[in-house]
Each structure stands twice: as C-alpha cells, then as structure tokens.
C-alpha cells in the first residue's frame, strides 16, 4: 500500500461514537478518580485527543477522604479506599471547570452523594455549566458508607435517581453500576426504563488485603475497591450480560491496559470505554489506545468503530 492509500483509508476509519446526544471523537474515556480534574495529567498526554474525560466524583460538600493507607497493590491490580476526597460542587464550578474549558474533549461530571436529593441538587447546580457535556452518576462507590453503594444495590432507588436526575438536566445521564450485585442487567434495565442515556460498568469490586505478621488490614478502611487488569474478565462478563439482556448504550470499564483490551470490551457490547488504573502507569495510554484502535480498524476493514459494538460471535 502506498502512503497515499494509507491516507485515503485513514479518512474512512471513523472512530466517533455517540452516548445519547454526546458525540465523542473516539470511544476513549478517562475514568473518574483516575485523572483528578485533568490538571496534572494534561502535562503528560494530549487531552484534545481523548473522547471524554470523567472528573473525580464530586459531592455537594467537600470531603477530605480517608486516612492513610488508602491504596495497596495486589496481583495485577490495586485496592483503593480514597474515600471520595473531593473539592465539593462550589469549588468544582469555581476553579476546576474553568481549567477544563480549554480542551477539545467532552467533560463528563461524575457525581457521588449520600441521598437521592443530593444527587439531584448537585446535577441541578452543575447542569447550566456549558463545559459539562454529560453526567455520570456514581451509585457504586464501595469505600464510604454514604458513597451511594446502598443505592447501587437497590433497584427502586436506582429508578428514582435516574428519573429525578433526568428531570433536572437536558444533558445525557450515565448511571455507573456496581459489579457487587447478583443481577447487574436488572439495574441496567431500570436505568433504561427511566430514561437514562447509558450505563457504565463496572466500578471497582470490593476486596481486601491483610498483613500476615501484624494481622492488620493493609488499608485503613479495611476493604477497598479492586481495579486494574485483575478485574478485566469480570468486567467483560458484566458488559456482555447487560448487552444480551438490555437495549442501552454501555460504557465498558475494568482493567483496560491497551487497545486490544479496549477492542474486547467493544466486541462484547461497549459503545465506549473508560480507562482508569492504567493512567497511573502510562498517562498517555488513552492516546495510544485510540491510535491502536484506528490501526486495528484499518487492518480489519472496519470503517466505523461503532460497528464493532456488540459484534461478538457466540
């Protein structure tokens, strides 16, 4: 193939995808809690080349987070119990959003709350901000009592959150599901019925790690959320399960390290995907994954990456 041919093909590989009314230039999203508010990582990667950036969970009031130790490495993964340390809605609007405005990407605001009213209030306050293109509602943080997990395990609460949050914003609403439930598709179904635009799956899996000499937990919170390559097979199975049972766009999350992992998520049903832990190790992973997917599509003769979604052969 001549260089000219390559250029011609390039213009025909379409990496763009849509989540509700939000158009992403490529399916790469940076996961909540793994890129802060974009400042630091923008020194190490080009955020303009990323489909969307999901901000650290923000709650109505600032939270200082858990005491140390907050993280520990495990086999091909890590446990974290950060405790939703964040600046709170007011500071988020005042100082974090202005910085994010400069990037040509979609900014998705992730919200955590300790009551249904708080989810609604946070969304209502942030919704007028033009920079924010969509909301991801975290009903699945395993690390604080009031981190939403109690909602994430209650179908009625998930229905009410979806309905009431949708009522206060015109922007797409994504509900981030907990994997720590027996029937994740039932939750996706409720979100779909109540008008949610998409679900993201999965948040971290509850895990723990003990020091055998002191017999004490290695993290202060005792349990934490497991992320990284260790959870990828579980996450893939959850995405597939939702895809087979419910008609709603899915954002796949869990252990993606490279474009091959990302392609796997799209094949089992993801419209887009989020990368988390890998940002700590390779902050430029998002750009590399986007390039890798483009090359993969070219080789496989896939002209629109959205054709890959749910293209599994079983």
């Amino acid at each position: 193939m001549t260089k000219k041919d390559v250029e011609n093909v390039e213009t025909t590989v379409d990496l763009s995808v849509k989540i509700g009314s939000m158009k992403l230039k490529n399916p790469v999203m940076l996961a909540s809690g793994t890129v802060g508010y974009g400042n630091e990582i923008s020194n190490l990667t080009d955020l303009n080349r990323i489909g969307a950036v999901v901000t650290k969970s923000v709650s109505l009031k600032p939270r200082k987070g858990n005491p140390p130790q907050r993280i520990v490495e495990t086999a091909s993964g890590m446990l974290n119990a950060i405790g939703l340390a964040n600046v709170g809605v007011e500071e988020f609007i005042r100082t974090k959003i202005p910085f994010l405005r400069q990037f040509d990407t979609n900014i998705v605001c992730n919200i955590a709350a300790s009551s249904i009213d708080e989810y609604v209030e946070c969304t209502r306050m942030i919704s007028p901000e033009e920079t924010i293109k969509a909301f991801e509602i975290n009903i699945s943080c395993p690390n604080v009592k009031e981190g939403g997990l109690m909602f994430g395990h209650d179908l009625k609460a998930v229905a009410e959150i979806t309905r009431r949050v949708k009522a206060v914003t015109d922007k797409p609403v994504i509900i981030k599901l907990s994997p720590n439930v027996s029937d994740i598709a039932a939750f996706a179904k409720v979100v779909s019925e109540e008008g949610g635009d998409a679900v993201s799956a999965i948040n971290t899996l509850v895990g723990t790690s003990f020091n055998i000499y002191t017999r004490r937990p290695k993290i202060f919170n005792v349990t934490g959320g497991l992320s990284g390559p260790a959870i990828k097979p579980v996450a893939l199975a959850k995405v597939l399960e939702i895809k087979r049972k419910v008609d709603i766009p899915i954002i796949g999350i869990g252990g993606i390290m490279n474009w091959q992992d990302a392609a796997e998520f799209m094949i089992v049903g993801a419209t887009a995907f989020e990368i988390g832990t890998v940002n700590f190790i390779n902050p430029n992973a998002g750009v590399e994954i986007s390039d890798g997917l483009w090359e993969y599509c070219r080789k496989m003769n896939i002209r629109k990456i959205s054709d890959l979604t749910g293209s599994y052969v079983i």
Partner: protein
Amino acid sequence: MIIVNAEVSEIVELGNSIFLIKVHAPKIARESTPGQFCNIKVSESNFPLLRRPFSICEVKGDFVSFMFNVLGEGTRNLAHKKVGDALDILGPLGNGFKFDDDYETAVFVAGGLGAAPFPFLTGKIPEGRKLLSFIGGRSEKDLITYGMKNTLLSTDDGTKGFKGNVVELLEAKKELLDESKIKVFACGPTPMLRAVKEFCLKYGYNCEVSTECAMACGFGICQGCPIQAEDKEGYYLVCKDGPVFNINKVVL
C-alpha cells in the same frame, strides 16, 4: 515532569542488597532538585503493576542515579537491570528541600535508605556553609555513607559509631549544633522522622523532612498518598505537596 525511556549506564551493588543505578536522562537531570523523586516502571508486564517511587540520589551532567534496597518484586526486577537496558522513568516529581534559605550549617539526618536524597543535596549546599551528616542504621552493614560528607555514625547494636539511634546521637552531639545557625534535613523511616521533629521542636531548629507513603500515580491524580496536615484541616498529598515538608506542616 516528563516520561523518558532512559538507558542504564551503570548499576553497582553498594553492599547488603543496596544498589545504585545510573541512567542517561538529560531532561530529568536538568529539571531536578534535591528531595524530588521519580516514579519508575519496574516491569514490562502487569506484575508488579504500579510504578515504584525512588528519590533522586545524584545528578551528574546528563546522568541521574537512584539508590535502592531490594525489598520485593519491584526492586528485585530493578536489581536485575543491565547496562544498556531501558528504564521507563516518570519525573522529576514533588517538591524538594529548600537548601538556600537562612542558615549557616546544614545538618543531615539519615536513617537507613533515608540516605538516598543526600548525595544530590550535599552538592547543592551553597558555598561557604558548613555541613554535618548524621547517619544511623540498625547495624554496621546498614550504614550508607555514599556521597555524604562530614559523617557522624550511629548503630542500634553499637557495631559502628555511637550506640543508639541517630536522634540520640544528635542529642549527644548537641554542642556541635549550637555553634552556628542550623537547618535540619531529615529522611528515613517515619518513627525516626517523628523523633527528629520532636527534637527540632524542643530546641527550635528549622527542619524539613522527606516523607513516604504508598503511591499509585506519583503525580497527584489518584489521591492515594495522604499525610495528615498540621497547619490546616485534612491532608496533603505526599507526591504533590511533598515528599519534603517543613515539620510545622505535617503530623508524622
């Protein structure tokens, strides 16, 4: 703060599973200041998954060195690196020591591998100022004096130098500290830093400590490395606000 693939130019064992690895990393060398660290990838695969933080031990021209102790899988991999191998390094990270403020004598206090940042700092102490290096270890084989000047030694078991811990040695040599205006720079295990802080508060010495915490990212995006703040509500991040703090800013 950049990521480079640096070539290993030298790796030597200083003894007792302590290694010095030197890499060609001109950009990092140019930007670094003593007390900063780099987050180094120790594996090509997913195990160990996370980078490992190491203080910048020495900068000479375009070369940067790290001193490390073989503890687990990550540092074992690092010890197996050979001259010519590539090392994926993220840095320089964090805030270093303030070594040009108002003092006449720099007093270094190092416990075990806490000696790591001091060779770099030793070279940066402004001309005309004095320097004293207090170095402690469990036993003679744990004492690391590499790249340090005017050393006073202590061992817990008395196999070399003063018998006792390094803070007891400071107390024993207090008349040396009162000859001029001093500033204390300390790095080592947290219990040692706590004792140094107490000692410095007791006598009103200005003191900075280099702290440690488990880290994932090393550059402020994961919130994984809190240290309790003393001068405000909540926490600082060791990787971004530290790892060097004035003792008045943090609870140790």
